């Protein structure tokens, strides 16, 4: 796995909100085809990190490289088109649109049709529309959502909304997917489905960066884990190593030495 090429790299990444240091100085690497997880207590800066990578928040200092190119400072939609897609901690589907349409929106970066060719239904637009529809419908079939294709996305139960959100992210044709707590609020069966989905994404050669609080899921699926606390990395390594790391245990449970 380590022989694979670098896909994402951060160098001394920093983010300050007002006077609050959300990310202190974070440097890490993600290799192609990996499932890498980011864990840490609430408020550690995990979601902030995702927002920096996707360009939602500007960085205060440091650099982010995606496939060797600096991407910080680019607009979110440009970063999305480069091949980084994400799902959100609080589900951000388009609730009024149908389940199928949600997936179809995901095809946006891979399609061209503009206002005029759409308005006049020019031949190339019709052709494009057809593959978008067919492919999206097929995608729904992979997770058994085809019967619900024409329902409003907002009417699905949470578990299916989360899966739909991942499908939508995959439709953009990403090379790297950022999943922000995909298993939060899911029951055991749904979490198992989510794990299978994560594996199937990786099997397609898509790299995954995962934020998750469900430790059994994290330890099961991750190739490598980064632990952050107060915006700093306190450990990095494969799951077996992280589980027994003294600093990690302290960060989660509070260190005994603090009270001595």
């Amino acid at each position: 796995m380590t022989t694979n090429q670098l896909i994402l790299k951060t160098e001394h990444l920093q983010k300050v909100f007002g006077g609050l240091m959300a990310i202190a100085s974070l440097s890490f690497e993600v290799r192609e085809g990996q499932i890498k997880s980011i864990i840490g207590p609430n408020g550690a800066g995990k979601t902030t990190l995702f927002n920096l990578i996707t360009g939602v928040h500007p960085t205060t200092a440091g650099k982010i490289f995606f496939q060797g190119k600096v991407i910080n400072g680019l607009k979110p939609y440009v970063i999305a088109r480069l091949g980084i897609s994400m799902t959100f901690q609080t589900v951000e589907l388009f609730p009024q649109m149908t389940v199928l349409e949600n997936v179809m929106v995901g095809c946006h970066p891979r399609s061209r049709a503009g206002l005029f060719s759409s308005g006049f239904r020019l031949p190339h637009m019709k052709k494009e529309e057809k593959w978008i529809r067919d492919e999206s419908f097929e995608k729904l079939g992979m997770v058994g959502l085809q019967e619900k294709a024409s329902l409003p996305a907002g009417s699905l139960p949470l578990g299916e909304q989360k899966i739909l959100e991942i499908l939508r992210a995959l439709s953009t044709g990403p090379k790297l997917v950022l999943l922000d707590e995909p298993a939060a609020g899911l029951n055991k069966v749904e979490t198992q489905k989510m794990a299978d989905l994560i594996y199937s994404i990786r099997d397609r050669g898509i790299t995954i960066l995962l934020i998750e609080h469900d430790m059994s899921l994290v330890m099961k699926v991750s190739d490598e884990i980064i632990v952050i606390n107060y915006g700093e990395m306190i450990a990095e390594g494969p799951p077996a190593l992280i589980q027994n790391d003294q600093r990690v245990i302290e960060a989660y449970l509070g260190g005994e030495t603090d009270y001595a």
Partner: protein
Amino acid sequence: MGKNNYLKLLGILIVVAVAPLIIKGDYYLSILVFMGINSMVVIGLSLLMGYAGQISLGHAAFFGIGAYSTGVLTTQFGFSIYSAFLSGLLLSAGVAIIIGIPALRLKGHYLAIATLGIGEIVFIIFNEMIGLTGGPSGLSNIPPFHVGNYQFTLSIQYYYLVWVTLFVLIWFSLNVIHSRVGRALKAMHGSELAASAMGVNLSAHKIQVFVLSACYASIAGSIYAHFVSFIAPNNFALMTSIMFLVMGVVGGLYNIWGALMGASLITFLPECLRVFKDFDILIYGAILLMILLFMPEGFLVGIPALFRKYFK
């Protein structure tokens, strides 16, 4: 676009073709012409507000730019009606781009106030550029529309002109809605954060739909100028912008058909209420209030919903 919409389009085509056989008289036909003109503007607003989630309280400005371009250029500069029409369209699009770039960075109430201000500025320009526009006393003798030597002088001719144009605009709008662009607009309305994560260029799409809706208003304005042959700034004041908005809201903005129904109803309603003499404005207000209270999504969605609620 879906079979359903094609059927509706066909239905409209039939109604439009048959209506003049039943509805006779210049007065009623002219109401139908105004219905069509207003519908063009409101359908543009529906794309902008209902689908893309951006508000405009200044659409009378684009309606006015279309009308005044046609009026001024044909009466004072000897432009042909087509080049005047195209100039109006380009001017509206240009103004929409220049205004849209800064204004569409704003959201919600702020965008509403900004567009309201734009409407006022354009209104003042119509009033003050007396040399060109004739100022508050208006601009008259705008030539009728013509195709070659065929002159449009009767209401029935304008009726067909307006409704055929409207038909094309509806078709274009429905195509846009059921396309990559339309999905991007709806996505933007649902969640800007998620839409940009899907690679949707928010500001480009906002400006695009703003320009498109400005063009619809401009087309309506040009036809309006030809039809009434006399225009004055008061036709394009804030109240006109509000009227367009009310038409949309009453019919339901999240739906092209709702926009069409709303524009038709609100254009026709004052004529129906004439029998109430001095009380007409009171009853008009009451009807609007009832629709907004009981059918906040517009009566096209609201009436079937009320039926389901009370008769099932």
